């Protein structure tokens, strides 16, 4: 089954003035969450009508950042997705994010089919990217790189899906901070000088529950006929501010409270610059109020759900009002109301005791009341957890659930990780549990990290799925819709693509006492020396019977006699 659908994200109102060779758009979506937290999602999109693939040397850059352009043309990259995330997205509390990402760093790249040495190019590319983003991507090597066969399909155009040209790696340990944000901001045409990017102040962004920044590069169609390609660079930044931490428990949010800045202008280079506020759960303003009010409303189907947004167009001077500054204020009136449970979510943990064996449990929840749907589970486990693949069980509702597709690549010590991909059908309203046992390997003493007792990370599992849409589920036609449109659920809206990441695992490995080698050396050397010494003595000494020595009185007498010059006794 083809599980790929390109539309993870949504674009509203693509306006193209004239015929520019490149185009830049920026937008911010704010969604007040039921927990009282607030979710802000920035997206910056640069589209450039050029072709890196046809061998012609592209070297004159305007809005597209030069450093990334050079990377694309030098390494023949067809698609590049990189994300840096601090914190874990709580799906059950917050719903689905617009752009999912696992904790730590994630990088997946499709190379063009002209690349001959994919592994070498991948190694060089990770080193260059690590320089561009000031991240430890240079720690990506063959031991944490996999080639998923089904889970990561190209999101841009092109029908090449040979997974020999795909590389996927995660670094769950990566810590994301200011030094990663600064180079990310530098890629924007307006930098952090104008437009929405002025809000991106690191002291506020990193004082949050969740922070994720990403760069996605892919070829897209230039127009509806899709005769020529453009390159699209999407920079996204998602952040969730905590009610208690950032707002001191008051259910009131403003741009200034979130980012300690207000907006005064759009980026002059942007063809569109908009702020959307998700007011779906608040149609009559009974939950929260938004000020200043805006007459502009927009509807979009996001992640299978029809949402309504208030729109603030920053390119219009009227948005900023008389004070020439926009400080959106969202004030909650009641803390009631409940969030719709996400249809798919997953969690993972390690079970077992002791330092020899253990068991990985992955739980996948299908919360749909009556539809079952298939999911693709991708697990990449480092080689030092030796999976016993014969212990793999998949159960849902107490019964064995046989996966219809399993792709398993065993690990090689110090060379490559385990790769396990499965297509599992999730029955409606159920929990599906995947368990597999493993044995912990002993590492060489140089392979331990500087803090080995902290544990070793195992990257998140990735669950990709086409989930039945809520819009299609919505059979009570209370919404105002033309009657002719509501009989059969629309095809495009009947399911949507979603990717869910589980928690990364932290596994303790048997850790030696690191002074042990020297202790062992000393001990064995002492034992050897004692054994050798006695053997040596036995071999080289000669033993003879000695006459008993004279008594003490006799010796003293002899000394006295010697002094007197008389011969001894």
């Amino acid at each position, binding site marked *: 089954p083809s599980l790929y659908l390109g539309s993870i994200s949504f674009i509203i109102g693509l306006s193209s003035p004239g015929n520019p060779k490149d185009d830049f758009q920026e937008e911010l979506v704010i969604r007040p969450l039921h927990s009282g937290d607030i979710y802000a999602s920035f997206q910056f999109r640069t589209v450039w009508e050029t072709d890196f693939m046809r061998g012609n040397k592209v*070297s*004159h850059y*305007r809005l597209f*950042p030069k450093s990334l352009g050079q990377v694309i043309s030098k390494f023949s990259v067809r698609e590049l997705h990189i994300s840096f995330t601090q914190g874990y997205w709580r799906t059950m509390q917050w719903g689905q994010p617009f752009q999912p990402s696992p904790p730590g760093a994630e990088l997946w790249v499709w190379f063009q089919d002209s690349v001959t040495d994919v592994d070498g190019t991948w190694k060089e590319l990770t080193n260059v990217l690590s320089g*561009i983003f000031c991240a430890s991507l240079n720690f990506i090597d063959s031991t944490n790189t996999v080639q998923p066969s089904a889970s990561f399909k190209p999101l841009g155009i092109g029908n090449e899906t040979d997974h020999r040209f795909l590389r996927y790696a995660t670094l769950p340990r990566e810590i994301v901070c200011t030094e990663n944000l600064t180079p990310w901001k530098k890629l924007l045409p*307006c930098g952090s*000088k104008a437009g929405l990017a002025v809000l991106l102040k690191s002291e506020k962004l990193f004082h949050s529950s969740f922070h994720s920044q990403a760069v996605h590069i892919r070829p897209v169609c230039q127009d509806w006929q899709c005769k020529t390609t453009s390159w699209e660079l999407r920079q996204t930044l998602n952040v969730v501010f905590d009610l208690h931490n950032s707002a001191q428990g008051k259910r009131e949010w403003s741009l200034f409270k979130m980012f300690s800045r207000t907006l005064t202008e759009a980026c002059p280079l942007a063809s569109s610059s908009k702020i959307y506020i998700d007011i779906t759960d608040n149609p009559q303003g009974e939950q929260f109020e938004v000020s200043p009010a805006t007459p502009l409303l927009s509807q979009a189907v996001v992640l299978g759900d029809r949402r309504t947004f208030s729109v603030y167009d920053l390119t219009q001077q009227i948005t900023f009002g008389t004070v020439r500054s926009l400080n959106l204020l969202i004030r909650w009136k009641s803390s009631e109301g409940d969030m719709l449970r996400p249809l798919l979510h997953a969690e993972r943990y390690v079970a077992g005791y002791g330092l020899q064996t253990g068991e990985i449990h992955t739980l996948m929840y299908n919360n749909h009341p009556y539809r079952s749907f298939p999911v693709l589970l991708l697990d990449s486990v480092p080689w030092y957890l030796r999976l016993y693949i014969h212990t793999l069980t998949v159960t849902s509702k107490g019964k064995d659930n046989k996966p219809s597709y399993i792709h398993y690549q065993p690990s090689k010590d110090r060379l490559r990780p385990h790769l396990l991909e499965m297509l599992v059908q999730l029955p409606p309203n159920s929990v599906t549990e995947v368990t597999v046992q493993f044995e912990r390997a002993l590492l060489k003493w140089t392979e331990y990290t500087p803090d080995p007792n902290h544990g070793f990370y195992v990257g998140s599992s990735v669950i990709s799925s086409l989930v039945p849409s809520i819009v299609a589920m919505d059979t009570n036609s209370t919404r105002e819709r033309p009657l002719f449109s509501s009989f059969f659920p629309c095809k495009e809206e009947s399911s949507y693509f979603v990717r869910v990441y589980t928690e990364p695992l932290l596994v303790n490995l048997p850790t030696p006492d690191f002074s042990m080698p020297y202790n062992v050396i000393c001990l064995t*050397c002492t034992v050897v020396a004692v054994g*050798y010494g006695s053997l040596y003595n036995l071999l080289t000494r000669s033993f*003879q019977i000695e006459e008993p020595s004279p008594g003490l009185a006799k010796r003293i007498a002899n000394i006295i006699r010697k002094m007197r010059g008389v011969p001894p006794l």
Partner: protein
Amino acid sequence: MLTASCCYTDRRRGQLAALSIAAVVIIVGVPLWWRTTETYRAWLPVNQINELANLQLQLSADVEVVFARGTVTPEQQKKVPTQVVISLCLFCSSPLEADLSLHTLSESPCGSLVVYVIPESSTLLPEDVDVYIGQRRTALLRIGAQMRVGRTLEQLLAHLEPRIKQVLQVMSFSHTDITAALSDRVRLSPGNKESIADSMRAFKSSPGYEITFSLLNPDPKSHRVHWDIEGAVQTYIQPLLTKLAPLANFSIDSQTLYYAMLGVNPRYDSSRSAYTLNSDSLAHVINPVEARLGSNAASSNPVLNFLLYVPDAHHSPLHIHDHKKQEVLSNAFHSPRWGGIMVYNVNGFYGPEAVFPVDININMAKVMGVFLAQLRLLLGVQSSAPPPGFLVAPCSSTGLADWELDRLMWSRTVENVATATTTITSLAQLLDQIGNIVINDNIAQQVSSAVTSLQLAVAELEAGNLGFALQYSKEAILASERAFFDPSLLHLLYFPDDQKFAIYIPLFLPMCVPILLSLLKIVSEARQKRRERQAKKD
């Protein structure tokens, strides 16, 4: 008696046992220990490297002297039977035409020169000009009146020699050029300040350069600036780079940076109603801009930056002032070994009632003229003033005469040779000093190939084959750098000796002390026995 002999054989056996144990330890144990703990060090051509350390460079250039009709007397002509005497271009009216027609006459390889000696009465050159330097590798030399007095050809040549030397210095290399090329590597007696400054300005020799043109627009709200950089590069820069292709690989790119500010606030000069940048403050302009420029992600070659700065609407016009408080005509300056900056004022393009943002098209011919001049300077194409009596042909369309390229190649080759030599010798020194470093076979191979290329380059320089010399010197640099920066050299660099001893002592001390003691005892006993025997004899 019986006990004594038993005692003696027992002792004998003990001694033999101790000796054989010592023998086993020395013959088997020590080599085993040595082989298992030694670091792998491949063979390096140390002697050849040491020879390189005090290298004598000898440069030779082929100079062909051609005498035109009327410059040699018949008896002089007889002595040189192989010499072809040409009557040149009777109908040429200007030296430029003569130069071109002579070029078609004989194609000279790079690094060589052809000097045509023309009669004193020739009207080809203007009155006060003795030497004309063409665009190719040719020069016209007017023979002086006093030079004709010599009877023989040798005398004539001796008369011509100082002039030809001067021509050679202009067209190929002079002592100061070579000194400047070596100044980074070799400590020489300080020359004059001018030449040092010249040598500091040009980029160091490298197998490739990245040229980046950046348009800085600090005020995109007011100015929408367009530049046709693609066309300008094709028209103005590419011909020069094509000509320079034997020297290095060049790659060109461009970018537009918005909200990029200069590091200093220009001062308002009310008398001129313009903003000014003093020459003292220019040094601080670059730093904040440089953070935005970004390094080249795809290569590690040095980057030549050319910035075109369009001042924002509130700080226009902006002029650069020199030390004498005069406006710099080009409104540009360059930074040694970094690049150039040009300020492009656009306030003249629109009136006070204009609606922002204003669309502005940049006059690329004006900009590229400045950048091209800066590029020549930064690449080290020196246009030092010729000696009196010399006339240099105007620049051709490529922006670079053949002999200028030759000059550059001479100094670059010398510089490459010097760089590669220092790299190789310092690597050899380092490896010699630190015994812990592992030398893999591939490093040894790189070092050997660098040494071979260096020797070849020096030999070719001596033979006057400039093209080959440059090629070999580039190879030498590449190989030497690859060897020097190989990461495998670092693996065991910091393995301290005290850790080794900490591991060895617990095993070796208790094993070796008994062996040593018993050996000492055996020796002393043997000595005593000999003494006793001697005493008995006496």
